[in-house]
């Protein structure tokens, strides 16, 4: 199995998350509203990063399916913060691809009355380096 220690350390540094604190209760995945859309689920992000299995995560669409709603962060009994891990993996993927998928200039065109601001904020942090 691949074990990318460099990326593991990088994700831990970027997210500030200590994946070894996870006690594998699955409450993050139990609470996740995007669960059915994801190939890899919040608890798997934490354990796979801990095992250094990061390439499959980078190549999966799961990193874009996370809504950044932070329910998993709110509910985690150990304070592991899985959404921050997902975000760090996503940032690594975006940085590798070399460009922002969304810039601040794109936002005014998206604003309309029906779109919650939180969605735009989430999209911005998701698709930007």
């Amino acid at each position, binding site marked *: 199995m691949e074990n990318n220690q460099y990326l593991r350390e990088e994700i831990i540094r970027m997210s500030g998350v200590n994946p070894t*604190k996870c*006690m*594998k*209760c*699955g*409450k*993050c*995945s*139990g*609470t*996740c509203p995007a*669960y*059915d859309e994801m190939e890899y*689920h919040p*608890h*798997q992000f934490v354990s796979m990063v801990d095992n250094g299995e990061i390439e499959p995560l980078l190549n999966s669409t799961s990193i874009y399916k996370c809504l950044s709603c932070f*329910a998993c962060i709110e*509910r*985690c*009994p*150990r*304070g*592991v913060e899985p959404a921050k891990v997902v975000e760090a993996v996503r940032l690594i993927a975006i940085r590798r691809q070399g460009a922002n998928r969304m810039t601040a200039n794109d936002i005014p065109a998206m604003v309309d009355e029906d779109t919650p601001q939180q969605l735009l904020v989430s999209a911005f942090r998701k698709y930007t380096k």
Partner: protein
Amino acid sequence: MQRVGVFVCWCGSNIAGTVDVQAVSEALKNEPGVVFSTNYQYMCSQAGQDMIKNAVKEHRLTGIVVCSCSPRMHEATFRKTAAAAGINPYMVEIANIREQCSWVHKDMLTGTEKAIILGKAAVAKVNLNTPLIPGESPVTKRALVIGGGIAGIQTALDIADAGFPVDIVEKQPTIGGKMAQLDKTFPTLDCAACILTPKMVDVAQNENIRIFSYSEVTEVKGFVGNFDVTIKKKARFVNEDICTGCGACVEKCPMKKVPNEFNLGMDNRHAIYIPFAQAVPKVATIDPNACNMLKNGKCGLCARVCAAGAIDYKQKDQFIEEKYGAIVVATGFNPISMEKFDEYAYSQSKDVITSLEFERLTNAAGPSAGKLIRPSDGKHPHTIVFVQCVGSRCESCAEKGKEYCSKICCMYTAKHAMLTRDKYPDTEVYVFYIDVRTPGKNFDEFYRRAVEEYGVKYVKGMVGKIVPEGDKLKVQASDLIANRQLHIDADLVVLAAAIEPDKSARPLATMLTASMDTNDFFTEAHPKLRPVESPTAGVFLSGACQGPKDIPETVSQAGAAAAKVIGLLAKDKLMGNPCVAQSDELMCNGCSTCANVCPYGAISYEDKEFRMPDRTTKIRRVAAVNPAVCQGCGACTVACPSGAMDLKGFANSQIMAEVDAICK
């Protein structure tokens, strides 16, 4: 000048592995006062102790320095050795070269250097030691047990059995505690009431036991063997000595809508009530917050129907003062509040209940007479979800949960799930768990039976959220092993709430000067070797006030605490600690600083006549220490602005000599 012997212990390789013991004993040979120095493999062994005794005789030693483990470990051993060799036990000093030296250093050179310095400090101190003789204090042969649950009951019965009088103080109107609320007990499934109530009756009938129910401890003074305790007997507005417990008053009371705390608010009781049928003492109590007569003087029905004339609306809180030799804390636990766990919808739906509420729901004496029903509509639930570790092992949510494992939930959840499937085979029962922890005797077999014989569906994973929708509870959870998210339409959800120490424990600990951990559990004197004693002498621990415990464990700890109490009460006199504070009256200026900092109330002031240099006399106010109360903490010695306070055995001069030896 003292004649000091130095004995350096190897402690096998514990010390000798990092400290050159030969070098230490050689180096200490040249210290002032040292006439003999040696080292040996195990100083605490019989051979090691004999070595000390022989050296005392041969070299006419007057002081002993043992370089070994922490004084908490073997100071008492070596003091006994000294006494056997004819030296005052307080002429022994321990240099801790294990915990504070060999165990924390890896390098032999550093370790050896530090061990020599610690040894020199001990030699410097022993040179200034003086023989001390401990005082004696009498023992009041009566014990106090605070809390009347199964822990308190068992402790009291065992102490009473040995012939000593015991008082139980219980804040509820009846003894019995949490166990009285339970339905069945794991792993044998005997009915809790069937095994508890005979014990409650034993307590009531035992001549050596007095029960102060509906009472609280409000003040504790004194020390081991001689505690002065004030007990507040709250007014129950019923004369306990006359009331026969017939219940006529309860039947007639018009205030019928008071939430019944015994059934956790799931049904109602009257303003005058007897908590449950087998209550001990079986005496009615009036709830002053609900009774019309007490609130506005309009009613008085109960007094009219009481044939015994026991109702007394004018009853006042009573304060009882009693002396005790030993105090046992058995204040127990409570489930934590589920209000803050929004994700489980506890506050939104009546059909999300805690495990203790489930106990009442399945108990034949409970609000549904033992029929398992949904609290919301009284219908029979078909799909039941149990969630474990709710608030337990919850590190990130200090404001609502607990960091520790509550220990009992795995077993009672298995019990609930099993009993449900046994009684109602048409139900589907899920248990969501993080880990199943069943290390007790016959415990794992019990859990496996729930799975294998009763078909309880155990799912590894937590419930993420619960949403009430129509008359269903939408449960969303993860099944980690199948790696999928589960969606279950449940009729009833049972939360295994974490348990916490009773709220009365913290103020009680302050009164007793007994220490607690950050979770408000009482700390034991030693986690392995003195598990039922508090570090405060004369205070003992029984049951869940010391940590989460099931019934078998609680009963064994209760017996152990009783044995310790009996050992204490069997003594006629206690040897005190001679290392207590003393005040130099000539230097004391009577400022009261020491009395203000003393946590034990050991210092008082007296006016004394002093002869002045010019042959006149003068009356001055000076401090006096009660050596029986003083615990030798030393707070007064550092607080005293004029340097009049000193601690015997740890005099300022001795401590400065140690510092000088270290800094030389």
